[in-house]
């Protein structure tokens, strides 16, 4: 047993032997993790690793044993830290009362492994997979003669993924919103055990279908790190360009959806088309509008030859000019500003407390962006400025998207001007055995985190995926407090979180 007092440090897109990850008895581990978070750390991942029964001994009767693993990011120091608990089963003192970033993580571990965090304030499943539907069960309820409850979903009014929202309202005002997800659960993590399998890469492409580049880049980076190398520079360059194209398409779609929700149709109509134009740029790279078949472990499946790059640049310029015009209409309209301002506010202190990531965090004034804080791959050589807006309301989240559209456009221009030479794909060496690898990628929703732990044969013993939506759904619930329930659509669109990325 290791007796050090702090986690071992590692950088993004690196690995270390499992034996070098310091371990503490579980109660001590919870305290050490809380202390690391207290020093300004951010909880990127918290998950269980099933342990062979033999290592547990007498506590066998309490159920299967696991080790808990925590990945904590120190954004200011540009470093990650990892620690774990000794194998245990049964109960342990919860981390959530000490730090709210752990809230959903501990519920997830409880659901997946059956270890109970004692003192957790709201212990219920996060994506119940067996038996009844996720929304069947207990919800937090507000009592009183004026109180009524509104239930929405899983089937929603628009063309959108399923989820269930339970509002506690006094008249129009939302006092509390609880979100029940799990409808999209396809068993992604379970299927990773013993992998990579033949279907694994396709499954990584569809963890969240609008974030294919982000998730496949994280996955490929994990495999390349485990193999002790990295993808050819030209592949890293191409991945960075594709990641920004993904961001451009989604942010454009979001601005259009927000405009549509406040009945500002010119921008809504224009953005619907321009989003498709950006998706078609992804298709120019690889044939698929969602970036399928582009990122491959060891590199990229397609190259961006000079003539194609030239076409990409000229089409990009047209679409950027289009979105600039559509955005100008939006910002110029007083009726839009009046609907966006002071609606769905998440304060910086709240955002920090729950560990928001991505544009939602940056719209609450937090300077956090994996491309800048934990640069890996091509982002070691080229960065876009971090787009931050204070205010925390719908307007701020829309503004951050617009800033990022401009900066992504500029980033792609710059990268296309100086392509690195070389191959786009190399053969991948076998993965190192009993090794832990971490990869963070700033997808358009925020931090995509993949963690792999290999067994003695170099196969996946545990693979953990944290989609940015896992951090951010709580932010949407907080944004609704004190709002009129009729503002739910624009609050929801201003976050635009992934259901399947959460449900896995």
């Amino acid at each position, binding site marked *: 047993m290791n007796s050090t007092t702090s986690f071992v440090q590692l950088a993004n897109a690196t690995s270390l032997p499992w034996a070098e990850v310091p371990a503490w008895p579980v109660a001590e581990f919870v305290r050490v993790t809380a202390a690391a978070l207290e020093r300004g750390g951010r909880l990127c991942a918290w998950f269980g690793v099933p342990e062979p029964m033999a290592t547990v001994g007498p506590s066998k009767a309490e159920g299967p044993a696991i080790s808990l693993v925590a990945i904590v990011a120190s954004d200011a120091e540009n470093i990650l830290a990892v620690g774990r608990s000794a194998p245990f089963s049964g109960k342990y003192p919860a981390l959530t009362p000490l730090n709210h970033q752990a809230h959903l993580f501990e519920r997830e571990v409880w659901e997946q492994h059956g270890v109970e965090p004692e003192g957790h304030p709201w212990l219920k499943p996060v*994506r*119940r*997979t*067996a038996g009844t*539907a*996720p929304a069947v069960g207990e919800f937090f309820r507000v009592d009183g003669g004026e109180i009524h409850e509104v239930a929405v979903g*899983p*089937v929603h*009014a*628009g*063309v*959108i*993924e*399923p989820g269930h929202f339970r509002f506690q309202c006094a008249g129009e005002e939302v006092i509390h919103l609880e979100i029940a997800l*799990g*409808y*999209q*659960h*396809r*068993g*992604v993590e*379970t*299927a990773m055990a013993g992998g990579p399998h*033949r*279907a694994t*890469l*396709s*499954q990584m492409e*569809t963890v*969240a*279908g*609008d974030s*294919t580049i982000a998730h496949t880049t994280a996955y490929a980076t994990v495999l390349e790190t485990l193999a002790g190398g990295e993808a050819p520079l030209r592949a890293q360059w191409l991945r960075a360009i594709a990641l920004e194209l993904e961001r451009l398409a989604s942010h454009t*779609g979001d601005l259009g959806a927000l405009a549509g929700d406040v009945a500002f149709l*010119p921008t809504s*109509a*224009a953005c*619907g*088309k321009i*989003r*498709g134009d950006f*998706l*078609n740029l992804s*298709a*120019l*790279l*690889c*044939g*698929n*509008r*969602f970036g*399928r*078949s582009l990122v491959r472990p060891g590199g990229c499946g*397609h190259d961006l030859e000079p003539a194609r790059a030239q076409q990409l640049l000229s089409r990009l310029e047209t679409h950027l000019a289009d979105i600039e*015009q559509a955005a100008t*209409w939006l910002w110029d*309209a007083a009726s839009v500003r009046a609907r966006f301002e002071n609606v769905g506010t998440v304060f910086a202190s709240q955002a920090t407390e729950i560990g928001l990531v991505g544009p939602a965090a940056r719209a609450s004034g937090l300077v956090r962006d994996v491309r800048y804080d934990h640069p890996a791959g091509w982002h070691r050589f080229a960065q876009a400025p971090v787009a931050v807006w204070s205010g925390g309301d719908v307007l701020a989240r829309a503004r951050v998207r617009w800033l990022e559209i401009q900066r992504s456009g500029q980033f792609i221009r710059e990268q296309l001007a100086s392509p690195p030479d070389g191959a786009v794909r190399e053969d991948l060496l076998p993965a190192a055995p009993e090794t832990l690898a971490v990869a963070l990628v700033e997808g358009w929703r925020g931090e995509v985190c993949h963690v792999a732990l290999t067994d003695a044969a170099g196969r996946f013993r545990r693979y953990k995926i944290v989609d940015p939506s896992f951090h951010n759904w709580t932010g949407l619930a907080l944004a609704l407090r004190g709002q009129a329930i009729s503002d739910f659509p624009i609050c929801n669109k201003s976050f635009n979180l*992934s*259901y*399947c990325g959460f449900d896995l």
Partner: protein
Amino acid sequence: MFVLDTIIHRLKRGCETMAYPNGPAPALPDRHGGSLRVEAAKCVDGCMACVAVCPTEAIARPIFAKGADGATRRSAVLDLGRCIFCAECVAACPTQAIVQTRDHRMAVSRREDLLLGAKEQEELRLAGALGDELRRLLGRSLRLRQVSAGGCGACEADINVLGTIGWDLSRFGIQYVASPRHADGLLITGPVTKAMELALRKTWEAVPEPKIVIAVGACAISGGPFVGHAEHNGGAAAVVPVDLFIPGCPPHPLTILDGLLRLLGRLEGKPAGNAPAGKR
């Protein structure tokens, strides 16, 4: 600014809706590849190159037929309902038994019409129009309730895109509606997770008769990349009867639109878009 500016900007942009299906279809991206053609007769005995690289196990080589010499042959059968169009098999095949056709048209009425390989079944058998009575009822006004049941969001996005000004689905009288009570049918994406099974069933029951069901994407047809997982039903047909299958991961918007118009008989007498010449 103002309202007038907005109107002037809008007028300047003109009509941005594509001419298809009365004019040419928008070109598929050059790396798209379109549908597949499988000519199992070209298979080399004992070759399993395509089977080994397919991520969704869409290709099998069952004992197919006895040849003239009395020996049994194993011929490739490719299930386009499982296919995610990664084209790994196309690259792996030593005899070009599997090739891309660049044809965007892929919608079929029967699940078995997606099985490619056998003689006369090298390509999929495209769907025809609905029967006369349904076509009379729905041909000029089709309201669809979309249900996402485990989809990754990509099929949903490209269903949504048909509603934008570039595609303008409403010019065909087709619209996505919020309530199943207002719908003539369902547009289903995703493998139908166990958690969504009840909701899908209830939504289907709420649609008044007569009703149609369209399964969009590899997940909704077979489970797609998640084929074989216990957490879902392996596609919509396990829960509700399906009238149209549109393969892809996700299908290109043009493929989805072709399926909808094909079902309503709205493509008859129209040019076949970017289908290869000679096959129109």
